[in-house]
């Protein structure tokens, strides 16, 4: 079985994010592997481990986990982290003409790489912690013509039957859904607890294949690159007007009543 995990490098979600003009400032802050992608990597590793004769991932497992990423060259740092967790290899599509790409272009590039790789499963996190659109998995399913099992907090894979089943919780309710391979899966953070890379994993990751390719090298003809231009223009980015300082009281036995008095004053009740 071949599993692709789509990952992204994002500004660290624990620090205050800033804008550089009309795009997210990615240079001035620490860049890390998107937290939410770690759950997808972990789930891919668990699937392989459960179906490996040795009980572990890697070349003896008979399965392969590839990380796929689009981003600047420094995104190799995020990919190394994924490799140190246990993925087998990684491909980074990095091209100056991709700077400022929107989700349409990103999904086009990722789908192109996935389509050429003979994968059975594509795993994604539910969103990146920077753009937070949560649209890439559905876009990949649409572009590839594959089934989608998105936002599944429980996933069962039957490798012998090329079959995936999952449970998802959406505004519709709790759905139990299934599909045959190939499938695009996205998993939320409640599905598992991602492992920390071990020292051995970190050392081993340095020897794992990590290839950087340009658009030309993944087979985009020069004339199709125009299709990658963003369809969305940002006109303005305005810091939110600072919130006027609120009232803070210490409860001395009447806090609940004072709270209700405030609600009345604000005409909420």
């Amino acid at each position, binding site marked *: 079985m071949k599993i692709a995990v789509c990952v992204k490098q994002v500004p660290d979600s624990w620090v205050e994010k800033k804008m550089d003009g009309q795009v997210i400032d990615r240079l001035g802050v620490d860049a890390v592997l998107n937290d939410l992608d770690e759950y997808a990597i972990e789930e891919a590793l668990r699937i392989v481990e459960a179906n490996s004769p040795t009980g572990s991932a890697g070349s003896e497992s008979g399965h392969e986990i590839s990380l796929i990423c689009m981003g600047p060259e420094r995104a190799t740092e995020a990919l190394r982290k994924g490799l140190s967790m246990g993925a087998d290899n990684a491909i980074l599509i990095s091209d100056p003409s991709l700077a400022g790409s929107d989700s349409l272009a990103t*999904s086009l590039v990722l789908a192109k790489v996935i389509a050429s790789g003979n994968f059975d499963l594509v795993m994604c996190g539910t969103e990146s912690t920077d753009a937070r659109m949560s649209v890439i998995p559905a876009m990949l399913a649409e572009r590839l013509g594959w089934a989608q099992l998105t936002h599944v907090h429980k996933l069962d894979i039957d490798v012998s039957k090329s079959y995936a089943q999952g449970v998802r919780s959406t505004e519709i309710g709790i759905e139990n859904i299934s*599909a045959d391979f190939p499938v695009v899966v996205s998993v939320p953070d409640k599905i598992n607890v991602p492992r920390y890379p071990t020292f051995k994993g970190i050392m081993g990751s340095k020897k794992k294949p990590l290839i950087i390719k340009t658009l030309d090298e993944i087979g985009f003809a020069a004339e199709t690159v125009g299709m990658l231009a963003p369809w969305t223009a940002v006109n303005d980015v305005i*810091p939110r007007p600072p919130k006027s300082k609120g009232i803070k009281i210490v409860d001395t036995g009447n806090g609940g009543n004072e*709270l*209700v008095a405030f*609600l009345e004053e604000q005409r*909420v009740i």
Partner: protein
Amino acid sequence: MSVVILVDEFDGKVARSTGELATFAARIGDVTAVLFDENLLPQLSEFCIDKVIVVSDANRNSPAEVAQVLSQIVKEKSPKAILVTSTITGKEIAARTAIRTNSGIITDAIDLASDLTTTQSIFGGALIVKARVQSSCAIIAIRSNSVDIDVTKSSPGIERFSGSISESLERVLSVEMAAKGNRPELTEATIVVSGGAGTKGDFGPLEEFADSLGAAVGASRAATDAGWYPHSSQVGQTGKTVRPQLYVAVGISGAIQHRAGMQTSKLIIAVNTDADAPIFDIADFGVVGDLFSVIPQATAAIKAKKP
């Protein structure tokens, strides 16, 4: 020029968010609503809708099938925009429709102007972004609770969708409706009361307080991870984003990840024993105190005011 809106239909009802989409769409042009359950037609007359396209042979719960319907409508009617509600499946429908029609897409909008400029609130509400889709049709997903609904009644004309739809590749084995109880849905509620680590697992007083206000109940990640409240009620970066008129954070310290899901609420109230909890930085009204005495007292005070 027309704008197409996708009706939100759940549990045999047209959701309130549909009225918000109609209100935004009417700012731009004629409003065409796409409806899957014909029985809900009468409910649409509550909103400013000019025309309804009724779709019978497709599954409203399948993003792949709904996207096929919407993209065929884009090809036939050339609308200026398609508006959907920014929910999990709403965004997937928008995403797939954008691919099928090669249109630009904006999600999580909180406002839409007549020239199709959207407003989004990003980084947990720290920044406001104004953006505009450049393609001939704009696919826009709008968060609920973003606008007061225009309640102009209408008697829309009806048209039947005639395209053919190929069945989605996923099989739905079972669906269990989200337990609704008597409380409103979290992302649609005008008041949300959320509990965190400070509740120590006892949501009783908080639920009673929520019910006295007709509020939805949410929870922080700490509370859902501890198993005190369902994950579907989690508010925050990895849970739901809410934007109610009033958000009451009870026993929640207010980590960045939680604030990302509620910071743009109109009015924020916090109750916490720790006077230095970051939640107080964004609260309009904060009570430093024990929630187990403050909240029941507040509940009693609200109940006393009701006839």
